[in-house]
Each structure stands twice: as C-alpha cells, then as structure tokens.
C-alpha cells in the first residue's frame, strides 16, 4: 500500500491568500499534508504559521477576503472550489470541527440540546424532537453529568470544559471520518485540558475517526499524536512520526521549537536574605451588590487566609487554575484592592496604608500583566508609556534625563532604543511584553509581581522573555512573585511554589520538592495533567 491510498484527506499544493489594503498576504504557501484513516495528525506551529488557516481553507470557512487554491481530496472528492451546497454535505457530517473558544463557539441564544441536534437534523433529516434521544446519548458519551437535565441548558450555564464537551458531542453527532480540533484545550485549565484530551482519545478508539489536532503545545502533541507536521510561515518545514520529530528532528526550526520548552531552575536565595514583602493571613472578599428589590448583598471570599514571605532575590511561583484567587492575591499584596490581613514591605508595616500612603512605595512594587495588547495605551508612544512612572516618582527629572533612562531601560529589555518613538501596535506580542517589563524596571523596583506574563506568548518567545526576566533578576537583585497556570514556566522560573485552590493554599514548598514529590492530591492532579513538566 502506498501513502496515497491510505490518505482519506490528501492536501496538495494548498495555498491560502488574504487580500488586505497593504496587498496580498500569503498565509499558506502551497503545502502538502495527508490525513490517514483513524490516525491522529498534529499540525504544530506558532501563531501566524498558517496551521489554522489551512484547515479553514479546506473547510470553506475563510474570512471574506481569503481565497484558497490547490487541492484537498477527501476520499476522492475535491473540496477546494466545491460549491457551498455540496461542501455542506461534507462539513458537519464527514468532517467536523471543534474550536479553541468554547465560550463563544456555541450560540448563546439556543439550548445546547438544540445546537447538537441541528447538524443531525440537517444532515439526516427528521425533527428536532426525534433527534433528542440521540442528543442525550451523545451528551452521556462526552461525559456531561445529568444529561437529561443539561440538555435544555444554555451555553452560559455551563463551564468552559463542559462547553467543549458539548462541541465534541456536536462533532460526533454524525459519526465523522475526520475530526479537526483547532487548539481545543488552549482556553481551558490544565486539569480540564487533560480530561478533554483523554475524552477525545477514548472516542477515537471507539469510533475510529481520524483526528487533526492543531496546536502550539508540543507537550500535547507528544502524548496525543501519531504523526506531526510542523508549520512555519505558511509552509510545512517537517513531517514525520511523533517519535522521529521529537527524537530526531531534522529542521532547525523544529529543534528550536523543542528547545523552547522552558528549562533550567532557579536556586533559592541564601537563608540570610532579608524578607522584602510579607503578607500574613491575607483575605479578600468580593461583594455582589444587592439593591432596593434584589435583597441583601452577598460576599464571595476570593482569597482566604493566605500567608506569604518573599525574600530578596527570591521568586515565588503561585500556581492554580482560573478562579483560584492567585491574581487577586497578587493585587492584595500590592495593596491595590481592599483586603484584610497584615502586610509588611521591608521593615515598614503597610497594613493600614491608604492610596496616598502607598504612593511613595509604589515605585518599588511593580506589576506586569498577562495581556501585552490590553495593558499598553494604544495612543501613546512607547517612550511616553515607559517614562510615565518617572513623572510621578521622580518629578524633578529633566526631559533629557528621562529620555536617557528610557533608552537604558529599552536596551536592558533587548529593544532598539529608537522604538521609544513608536506606538504599541507596531510591536509583536513578545516585544510588547518587553515594553511592559521596561515600564516596570525603569523605576528600579525591588519587587515585581508578574501576573501570567508569558501566557499570551508563543513558546519560543516565552523562552526569551523568561531568560530576560532571569537576567534582570540577577543583575538588580529583584524579587518576583510569578503568577501562572503554566507549570512548566513556573518550574523554570521560581525557587518556591505555592499551589492555590478556591482562595486557599493547598500546598507550598521549594520548587524541586513540589514537582518531584507533591503531597496533596490536588497538586498531584495538577502536575499529572500538565504534559510538559
């Protein structure tokens, strides 16, 4: 048997172009791919590599300004250029898709039962009522508890993981040949991610469909796929079995990707290092306000009795899933929101400090956020953004001095000093995060709280930002609190780890101890669910 006979989807010379006001952008530049019956093919690449657009092109789902050319043969039928009516007989029936955003991929205005029934009714005929039994079966198949009750729920009544299960139910409804999963777990917490991937694998074994897994996460690929295609800038740079790709990568880019997985570890600070920031019995309540007719307000405890000591030169990693209170804790330590407990910065008791009293200390306590797009003002130049803090904390500085400081800060984070006259939208995600770091370090802080600083970045860029943060820490003796849901990054960055769940500390200890010998079941689940640590 030749490869061609095996392939149920044979992609040849596939090109995807987008016409933009600045000319044509070639997103996919004539690639070849084979999907074989019952296999899992991972298409790996960083953002902008064209991995999603390849599948969107084949499925006729490109944006209006996109065109697809070349060939994609599904069991002998050409999909490229197929009229919509004929394509609709394949989409949702023979080839189905699940997407990255379980929050928005379902229509918020219809019950999940109806949405799962829709492809059944459209492809097989019958009524919505008649499809109900099949929908119930599917919901049970994908592990939605109390399917009988859940079938009439709306998407907003389900969690992210449950919505992704609903999408999977929809994808399975017509027993497809190929299931395309476009970053299916990227938006989910690690433990949920593992559950969803396990579910997909189990369903594949049961129904024998092929899965095309589009992802940027090599950890998932290693555990999940049989073959891998690595994409970069619209081209497939390497294709092969998972074992070959991971053990004997041929392309430089593949090697670079594999090396970009966070590595190394940080030594703890000496025992006599002074405590620079301390929070004792930190508590934060969020109140849901009541109203004239709504009844009394209700409180929700986001952080509950957490204590933490940060030494000079130390990095404490705080890990936990969304809603665990880790970001709230970070803000409470900086006295950025109303909270109870005892707080100390250096030798100063700052428990009772209000905004005015905190202001002189702010320059030494800086914060870097996750979203490198949202946290920089789009209408100010990079120079204005990074020197803004100097206006407050060093008002006597002359314009020329400020400019010198800006140049120095940009050089330190590895950016061209000339970029201070440009605007944030001209920079990539990684560069923006460098700008955000420059804004923090220009004030020469003692403590920097890093709230998911690398979560929005590609792995290779992530590695660079981590290296930069380590470098700055060593040079300036900075202390970090590193908040992340990504265990591999936390492992590489911090010497002490705090595991949080529902606002409380589940377990804490030195990084090595936590990762090598976790004591608590929750920590074990968390580490077990992360494929790449």
């Amino acid at each position, binding site marked *: 048997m030749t490869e061609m006979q095996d392939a149920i989807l044979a992609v040849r010379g596939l090109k995807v172009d987008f016409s933009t006001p600045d000319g044509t952008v070639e997103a996919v530049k004539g690639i070849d791919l084979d999907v074989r019956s019952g296999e899992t093919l991972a298409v790996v690449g960083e953002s902008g590599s064209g991995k999603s657009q390849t599948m969107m092109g084949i499925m006729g789902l490109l944006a209006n300004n996109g065109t697809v050319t070349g060939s994609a043969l599904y069991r002998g039928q050409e999909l490229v250029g197929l009229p919509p009516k004929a394509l609709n007989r394949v*989409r949702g029936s023979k080839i189905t898709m699940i*997407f990255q955003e379980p929050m928005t991929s379902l*229509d*918020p205005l219809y019950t999940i039962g109806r949405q799962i029934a829709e492809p059944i009714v*459209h492809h097989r005929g019958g009524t919505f009522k008649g499809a109900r039994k099949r929908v119930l079966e599917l919901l049970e198949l994908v592990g939605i508890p109390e399917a009988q009750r859940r079938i009439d729920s709306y998407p907003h009544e389900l969690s992210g993981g449950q919505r992704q299960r609903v999408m999977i139910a929809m994808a399975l409804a017509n027993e497809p040949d190929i299931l395309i999963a476009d970053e299916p777990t990227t938006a989910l917490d690690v433990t949920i991610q593992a559950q969803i991937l396990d579910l997909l694998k189990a369903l594949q074994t049961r129904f024998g469909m092929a899965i095309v897994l589009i992802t940027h996460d090599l950890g998932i690929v290693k555990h999940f796929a049989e073959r891998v295609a690595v994409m970069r800038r619209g081209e497939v740079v390497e294709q092969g079995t998972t074992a070959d790709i991971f053990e004997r990568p041929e392309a430089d880019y593949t090697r670079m990707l594999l090396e970009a997985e966070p590595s190394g570890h940080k030594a703890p600070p000496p025992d006599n290092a002074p405590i620079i920031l301390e929070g004792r019995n930190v508590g934060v309540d969020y109140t849901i306000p009541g109203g004239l007719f709504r009844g009394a307000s209700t409180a929700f405890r986001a952080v509950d009795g957490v204590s933490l000591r940060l030494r000079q030169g130390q990095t404490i990693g705080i890990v936990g899933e969304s809603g665990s209170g880790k970001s709230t804790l970070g803000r409470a330590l900086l006295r950025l929101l109303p909270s109870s407990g005892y707080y100390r910065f250096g030798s100063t008791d700052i428990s009772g400090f209000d905004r005015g009293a905190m202001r002189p200390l702010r320059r030494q306590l800086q914060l870097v956020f996750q979203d490198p797009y949202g946290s920089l003002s789009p209408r100010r130049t990079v120079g204005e953004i990074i020197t803004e803090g100097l206006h407050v904390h060093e008002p006597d500085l002359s314009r020329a001095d400020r400019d010198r400081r800006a140049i120095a800060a940009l050089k330190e984070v590895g950016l061209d000093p000339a970029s201070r006259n440009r605007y944030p939208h001209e920079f990539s995600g990684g560069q923006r995060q460098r700008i955000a770091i420059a804004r923090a370090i220009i004030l020469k802080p003692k403590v920097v709280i890093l709230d998911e600083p690398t979560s929005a970045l590609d792995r290779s860029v992530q590695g660079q930002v981590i290296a930069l943060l380590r470098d700055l820490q060593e040079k300036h003796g900075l202390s970090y609190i590193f908040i992340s849901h990504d265990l591999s990054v936390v492992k590489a960055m911090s010497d002490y780890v705090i595991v949080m769940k529902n606002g409380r500390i589940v377990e804490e200890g030195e990084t090595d101890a936590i990762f090598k010998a976790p004591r608590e079941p929750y920590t074990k689940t968390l580490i077990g669910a992360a494929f790449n640590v």
Partner: protein
Amino acid sequence: MISFILRRLASAVPTLFIVVTLSFFLMRFAPGGPFNLERPLPPSTMENLMRTYHLDQPLWRQYVHYLSNAVTGDFGPSYIYHDNNVAQLIGKGLPYSMELGFYALLLAVVGGVITGTIAALKQNSFLDFAVMSVSTIGVTVPNFVVGPVLTLIFAIMLAWLPAGGWGDGSLRFLILPMIALALPQLAVFARLTRGSMIEALHTDHIRTAKAYGLPSRAVVVTHAMRGAMLPVVSYLAPCAAALLTGSAVVETIFTIPGVGRYFVLGAINRDYTLVMGTVILIAIFVILFNLLVDILYGLLDPRVRHD
C-alpha cells in the same frame, strides 16, 4: 416573571412623580401665562380667570392641587380649548395618533430590518452602498420636507392618494403620513440592523454553524438574525413611544386629528394642564414600552431572563 413586572411597575411610580414635578415647575417658570394674549385682557377679567383656574394661589398649593387631582385621573381643564378638559382632548386624539403610529412603526421595523439585513449580507456591495445612502437621507431630511414632497408627487401630480385628512380612516388616507412618519425611523432601524448583523455574522458561533454544514438560510435566520435583533429591540421602546404618541409636524401637514399637535400648541400657549397631560402620556408610553422591550429581550436572550 410576574415579580419582575410588578417590580418594574412599582419603580415606574417614582419616575412618573419626578417627571410630573419637574415639568410642572419648569412650565411655571417659563415667562408668560395662558391668558397673556396679544391684546391684554381687562384686569377684572384676568382676575376672574385666574381665580377660576386657581392660578392666583401660591405655586405649591397649585402643585398639590394638580397632583391630588391627577392621581384620580382628573388632569384639569384646558385653558385654550374651553369645551374640553385635558383627558377628553387626549382621549379623542390618541386613537388617531396610535393607529397612524402603529402602521408607521410596523413599516419602520419591517422595512428597516429587511433592508439592513440585505445590506449586511452584501456588505460593501453596490446594494449595501445604495441602502446606506438612502438611509442617510432618511435620517437627515426632516419630515416637514418629506411630507410636502410626498403630497406634491402622490396627491397633486399623480393624484393617487388624498393630500390629507383622516377621511373614512381607510388605508388610502394613512399611506402618505405613515411614510413621512416612518422614514427617519426606518433609516435608523436599517443602520442598526446592518451594523449588528455584520457583527453577528463574524462571531465564532456563526463559524461553527457554517462548519457544521448548515444551509445559509439557517445560518442567517436562525443564528445571526436572532442575536442581531437585540440592539434593534432596544431601540424599539423609545421609537414606539415616539411614534404612537403622535408627531406634531406630520399630523399638522396631513391634518390628522391626533394628539401630536397638542404638545406644541400647549407649550406655545402656556396651556399648563395640556402640556402636563401630554408629558404624562408620553412618560407612561416610554415606561410601558421599555418594560415590554425588556420582557421581549428576556425572551430573545436567555442570558438576561427575568425570574
């Protein structure tokens, strides 16, 4: 649901009270009065009139007097239309205004949603461009221009339709004022629909619907349209209240015996009670339609269901 409606109706009481109080005092602070005519009345006549209508009493007593009568449904006599009290005037005119307004609303919503949807589906095409240009004209050209032009073309030059009046109340008489009244609102609905439809067509769940091979009719009507209607429905409340309570301009041009003109005439003549009556009428309509729209909104969008 019932408790939601009751709560909303309860909260309408203070709103109405504030509206009544504000407009009562604002009106009184405007210079002039109902009997300041071009030729001044003899002082004795003036004094008599003032006494008859209690205008000689201190303002706060007039206010209390008005308020206590208003809650019993007595909105006082009109100072200008001596034969009728305010309730009777509004009671007579309102059915005409409401019928005309209802047809205009229907035309505006149906026409606006259809043209807006077509424009959105053919975004940036000639059709889209044409619809948007016409709707710009609809918004910018005032109805005191549209009205006479319509009359000129269809009533005088082509002589297809009557130029004005209510006649026997048949549709023939209603067509021109209905168009004049509906056009600006139709244009707003078209723009709103186009905008929200374009947005809806780019959402992730529309991509899902397409990826599952749903025919484009199902994608557009079932999935995109329902979401796109939410902003349109929000605008329905102020629009319905405005159209159903009559338009001074359109009713004057087409000599419709509705309530729209009372607002303008009442204000000009300082007919305090008539102005108050129309203010209360409009306020009640706005409150009721906002409530209706909120209920409708809840039916359309499960995320805001009121229970």
